[in-house]
């Protein structure tokens, strides 16, 4: 299983803050995300917008990062704290 988390305007757009999906061997975040969009529709394109940040197990990663079973993946806009 992979746990997915969504934050800020991405969470609002998708209308959900988290979900779980099945683990697929040797899948990059890019591919995993394309599968999500295929399944859930155009609204989910926001996940691949150029400024969307990807994290895996609470570390920012590139889109070609290969996901492992049990990983926590998050999608969020550029941060605006402080």
């Amino acid at each position, binding site marked *: 299983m992979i746990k997915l988390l969504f*934050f*800020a305007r991405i969470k609002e757009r998708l209308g959900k803050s988290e979900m779980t999906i099945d683990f697929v061997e040797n899948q990059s975040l890019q591919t995993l995300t394309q599968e999500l969009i295929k399944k859930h529709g155009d609204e989910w394109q926001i996940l691949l917008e150029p400024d969307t940040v990807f994290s895996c197990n609470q570390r920012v990663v590139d889109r070609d990062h290969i996901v492992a079973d049990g990983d926590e993946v998050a999608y969020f806009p550029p941060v605006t704290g*402080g």
Partner: protein
Amino acid sequence: MSNHKSALQYTNADIHINVQSEGFDLSDEMLQLQNCFDKQDQEIGAISSFTGQVRSTEEDQSVVDKSGKLLALSIEHYPGMTEKSLLETCQLANKRWPFKACRVLHRVGYLTVGQPIVLVLVAASHREQAMKACEFIIDHLKTAAPFWKKAIFENTAHWVEAKPSDQLAIKRWQE
């Protein structure tokens, strides 16, 4: 965001991180910062602080015309990753400007105009370390810690956009 994994080294500085909805009192935090140390061996000569708070004004008058007055910020974060990111930021600062102790408090939730958002406190032997570390931590936090602000206006609300000037501010430290 955080490209500084190499900075996660052992440091003997006392680093305290808190993400909280409650406010904070600067003097209390100063006391707690100082209580980290043996009273008999007070090597702290300099303490720097930075407090960020909700401003009422929008520089862009067209925003004011359309949205009305800013009432508050609603701040969301990624629990777990936020604390990890703030700790890394402090450790990175400590590597460049060794300090004795540091406290970073960041609030989340609904914060009205004038309320404090973030506090960075750094205690060091000398003023350069304290001031530079404090400045670095706030600059770094702004581009690395997973917080998001939503601006609540009289007539509308929108997510705050990341500022290019914050990206420039952090680049400055890489020189």
